[in-house]
């Protein structure tokens, strides 16, 4: 491969390319499968998007800040449970409580990570377990807790412009608002600085602790709010917090182009990643593929992205190149 071609490949962003590929995959899938693609398929895509996006946003924000938040999927579940339990007469109150709880849960963990500089992985693992326990207690270990206010549900699933629903429009609105914040405020720049190199950012005058806690808090708010909205749309909340949505969220975030090492990423990248995964799963439905095969495919997707984004891959590649060069007798360059 020529140097020019290699440079071009490095410049092409991963997220939009994968999105285009998944879109094309969905469009051509009817030729290989038994299903067909129509506005219903795209509306399914948007429904999946609305369900996955809140957790993906929380995970993505954490990753941009250089951290790894494992608890946001539990915050999502907690938001749903609280919204159902306290929002029967007033859905807005339920959502406020859900969002507030999300902020509190995330801020506690974020404060520990920021002030004590503890690694976010075990801290949020503890948080995940603790929040899971709370959700379980609130739901009295019942599989499904039913929400009795069906009016909200009817409103949330009202179709908008064919493929959207009120629910997905709300979620898209939240993402657009956040993307404006990340792009045009100092918080956004500070967030990427802290994620890239926290020490250098502090030397440059960034209030790293505030930024970290802010990132956690916003992620918690989005996860809690999203969980509440989703519970209203499904008219129920679950007592068990499954890890699976987190796996999908992490895959979406990385596929969309957020760097695992931190410091790089946008809301658009996260949204693109979630859409790509939603398109992929819809295509697999059209292909009438076994649900287990879907698990394998998303797992493989994640593996490929993890392997190609490995931090020391450049070093390995250069080492290989040097060795080949030495074998040929050329000077190492």
């Amino acid at each position, binding site marked *: 491969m020529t140097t020019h071609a290699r440079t071009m490949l490095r410049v092409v962003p991963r997220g939009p390319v994968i999105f285009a590929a998944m879109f094309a995959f969905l469009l051509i899938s009817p030729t290989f499968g038994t299903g067909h693609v129509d506005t219903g398929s795209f509306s399914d895509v948007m429904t999946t998007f609305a369900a996955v996006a809140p957790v993906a946003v929380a995970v993505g924000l954490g990753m941009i800040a250089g951290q*790894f938040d494992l608890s946001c999927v539990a915050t999502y579940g907690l938001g749903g449970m609280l919204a159902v339990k306290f929002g029967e007469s007033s859905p807005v109150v339920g959502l406020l409580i859900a969002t507030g709880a999300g902020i509190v849960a995330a801020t506690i963990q974020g404060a*520990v990570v920021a002030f*004590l*500089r*503890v*690694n976010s*992985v*075990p*801290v949020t*693992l*503890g*948080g*995940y*377990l*603790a*929040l*899971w*326990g*709370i*959700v*379980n*207690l*609130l739901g*009295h*270990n019942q599989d499904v807790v039913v929400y009795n206010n069906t009016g909200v549900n009817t409103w949330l699933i009202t179709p908008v412009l064919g493929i959207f629903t009120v629910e997905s429009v709300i979620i898209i609105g939240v993402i657009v608002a956040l993307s404006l914040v990340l792009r045009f405020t100092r918080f956004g720049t500070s967030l990427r600085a802290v994620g890239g190199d926290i020490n250098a950012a502090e030397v440059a005058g960034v209030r790293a602790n505030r930024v970290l806690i802010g990132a956690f808090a916003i992620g918690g708010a989005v996860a809690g709010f999203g969980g509440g909205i989703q519970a209203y749309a499904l008219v129920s909340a679950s*007592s068990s917090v499954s890890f699976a949505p987190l*796996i999908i969220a*992490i*895959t979406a975030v*990385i596929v969309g182009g957020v760097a*695992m090492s931190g410091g790089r990423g946008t809301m658009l990248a996260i949204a693109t990643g979630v859409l790509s995964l939603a398109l992929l799963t819809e295509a697999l439905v059209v292909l009438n593929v*076994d649900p*287990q*095969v*879907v*698990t*394998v*495919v*998303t*797992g*493989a*997707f*994640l*593996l490929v*992205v*993890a*392997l190609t*984004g*490995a*931090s*020391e*891959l450049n*070093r*390995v590649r250069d080492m290989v190149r040097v060795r080949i060069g030495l074998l040929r007798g050329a000077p190492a360059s």
Partner: protein
Amino acid sequence: MSASAPSVLLPRPARSPAWLLLRGGGLAVIAAACWFLFATHGFATSRNLDAILLSSSLVGLLALGQTAIMISGSFFSLSLAATTAISAMVFLSSLRFGLVPAFALALLFGALSSGIQGLPVGAWGANPIIVTIGFGSVMEGAIVVITGGSTVNIPSGAPSIHFLTSSVDGIPFGFFVLVAGAVGLEFVLRRTRLGLSTYLVGENRRAARAAGLPVGGVAFGVFVVAGVCAAVAGILAGAVSQGATLSIEGTLSFNAIAAALIGGCAVAGGRGSAVATLAGTIGISAINSALALRNYANGVQILVEGVIVFVVVIIVHLRTRSRS
């Protein structure tokens, strides 16, 4: 230090108030926990204690594997539970070839399937959490496709595996295996070159690589160890439940990681011990048992586990920081 030179008595370093508070507070908490346990009605019976040891066995074996991975600085593996369940399936279905081949195949599966995940983590610096999540998903999906979702049962005419579920004096066989595993792992970690290299790689990966330590080999090695531990756990689980499905996974992954963290392992690497992890496993099992005996809901057990992990991680971090 030569015998002729007089040893110099260095003055003991002054202990800061914060250090004393942490030490004192830690002891007080442990004392309170012991009081809580033994004040629980029905806790200190031999039957209950044996039950605690049994439930510790599976989690403990996986926790040993997670300990090895954590010490090497590769965080943890989120696919060990899947390895356990699938090893159980491999073991049970391989019993048709005989007892020894079944053991060998299950252990080989565990070693290879886990080791292969360690390679990109060690050689390329791939993120271990994401690699193991992805690989775990692929393994789970693949095994359901292969078995069609049905339980893998013991084939007829297979040799007896009753000894795996037997107990000596009430103490289950699995617990002896766990203790042997902990002692063995501790020996490897403290007394062999591989073990010491593991600590060094976990402490500072770049420095270890610059010093010529086989970073990739160490990562491969700890993942193989974890895979073998998971396979042993799978063999025991398959013997106990007389049939293997993915439901064996349960919440094993998280309980194992929690046990290792509570035992004092630092997720960033460089510190931890197999014996401490064993203590952490038994401690968590004991607390869960006491909570269940006191009729607390399942959610309380999970919540308590989460809070303990949270607190211990902070304490371990503060202690490491005050030392350096």
